[in-house]
């Protein structure tokens, strides 16, 4: 059958994409609007970006969020990869069902429930052990928890389709187990590792609900500041900030896509 997309399907796709993109494009346009009034176009201006660069509160929050995201996604990468290896390569072990369930928990658990229960955990731990105090540390721990799940699912999918015969061949040729893992398995997993780290990074950077619950009085992340500003009404500097974040995320997605495509080509060439 020739691949022919009906006009109806194409129209629906167009409507959907327009729906997804128009608000973002409008937001980007507003960020260059000289007028502070949303309905008036006051000419092109980069004033809001300049104002942003001088906003100490936002800069501080941005640094905190970036730091949390880097630490959380790196730790989650390690834990999630271990979980994926365990789930794919170990047929039976104690706690297998539990691990499977917990890896899928963040996908079905409303964020607000995760946030409340983790806050109650931290508060109870503080009562019992005198540690941890709520702040950056507790946000990192919460973020590691949900990011680990996303890493595990992504890496698991890649590991399932990986060719294990290559590892066996390397071992037959005299490679030690860790060498085989380092030289064969890890390069196969690399695209999944890169994309799951990037996904974790953006999820952590974006998280509002869980962070709000587990954060302490002094730790305000970027989404918390943005939410507070947005709640009060339109603020043009948020438009500028949003544009910068969207540009950064867009760059991450493009890098991940290019890497995935290159990896695919590589695998196809090898096969």
């Amino acid at each position: 059958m020739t691949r022919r997309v009906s006009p109806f399907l194409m129209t629906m796709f167009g409507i959907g994409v327009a729906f997804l993109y128009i608000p973002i494009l409008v937001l980007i346009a507003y960020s260059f609007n000289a007028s502070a009034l949303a309905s008036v176009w006051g000419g092109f201006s980069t004033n809001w970006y300049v104002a942003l660069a001088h906003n100490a509160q936002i800069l501080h929050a941005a640094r905190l969020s970036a730091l949390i995201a880097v630490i959380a996604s790196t730790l989650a990468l390690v834990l999630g990869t271990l979980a994926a290896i365990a789930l794919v390569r170990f047929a039976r072990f104690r706690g297998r069902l539990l691990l499977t369930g917990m890896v899928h928990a963040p996908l079905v658990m409303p964020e607000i429930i995760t946030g409340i229960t983790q806050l109650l955990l931290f508060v109870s731990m503080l009562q019992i052990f005198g540690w941890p105090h709520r702040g950056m540390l507790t946000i990192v721990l919460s973020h590691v928890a949900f990011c680990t799940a996303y890493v595990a699912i992504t890496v698991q999918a890649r590991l399932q389709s990986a060719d294990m015969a290559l590892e066996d061949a390397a071992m037959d040729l005299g490679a030690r187990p860790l060498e085989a893992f380092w030289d064969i398995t890890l390069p196969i997993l690399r695209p999944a590792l890169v994309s799951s780290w990037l996904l974790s990074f953006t999820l952590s950077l974006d998280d509002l609900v869980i962070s709000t619950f587990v954060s302490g009085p002094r730790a305000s992340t970027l989404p918390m500041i943005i939410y507070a500003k947005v709640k009060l009404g339109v603020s043009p500097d948020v438009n500028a900030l949003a544009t910068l974040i969207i540009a950064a995320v867009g760059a991450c997605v493009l890098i991940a896509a290019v890497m995935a495509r290159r990896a695919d080509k590589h695998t196809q060439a090898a096969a």
Partner: protein
Amino acid sequence: MSNHTAIDSKNNLPAASRGGIPVDGVRAAPVWLKAAMRAGRWLIVAPPLVFLAVFFLIPFLFALKISFSQASLSIPPFSVLWQTAVGGGGHLVLHLKNYRYLLTDEVYAVSYLYSLKTAFFATLACLVLGYPMAYAMARAKKSTQSVLLLIIILPFWTSFLLRVYALEGVIRDNGLLNTVLLWLHVIDQPLKIMRTTLAVYLGIVYSYLPFMVLPLYATLEKLDTTLLEAASDLGSRPWRAFVDVTLPLSMPGVIAGSMLVFIPAIGEYVIPALLGGPDNLMIGRVLWDEFFSNHDWPVAAAVSVAFLLVLVGPLALYQHARIKQLEH
């Protein structure tokens, strides 16, 4: 019908070329892992298992415990369950009043049902818009597909909060939509969309549409088009072939996409808080207020526990039944 696909797709896997022997869907370990296993595979299993248990499982036990306590003015704002008596010993004090409160104060039941209703119709709207989108992607040329996929993935990765805020820029009273419609003289009064139920629906569909499209695309893309040819050779009209062949075969994608939209939408806080009006009392908002405005942590804990039992319990059972069904 769907059973057949599951089995077929399993048989179609090029198992031989991938090496390893499938054991309960898990492949046998290579040699390096067997060595590692002897050395103690707990080094691999334990860190994620313990970490996730501490942050996903144990919090529930604490929530359960606190849901039986009483709100108090102390820090943290709840009473202790174990009250030590003078001279040793003690007794357990369980307060059931938080749960009784959930049943007597109708705001919880009402907002829970309202959340279910909102999530259901928003999911339906996502499906109606997302299905043709995914189908269009699946029918496009292979080379175009990866670009189309990227177009859908990009918003999926973009900050949720920022996208809700961006939508506000379009639908608010002096936003783009009203400006354009006024300019075109379609309307002469700005449409009031913000702070209405419609805004909440638009917000959910806008935010979760990629979650619907991606799994649908994944199933539709694998669809065997020769089946459609066969249907048309046998005299089926296109829409008949769609209803008889495509739709049933894509049910796994429909279910996966609907779950990914429906479940988080029930607990949604940001969308009703930013776009909705005072009437749009979804359970996430009630919980948030209980916690941050009323400081009633025990009631919030009880709402969380009840919410999980009512939502996640049935879902787990449903999943279990579905896996059982696929096995038979």
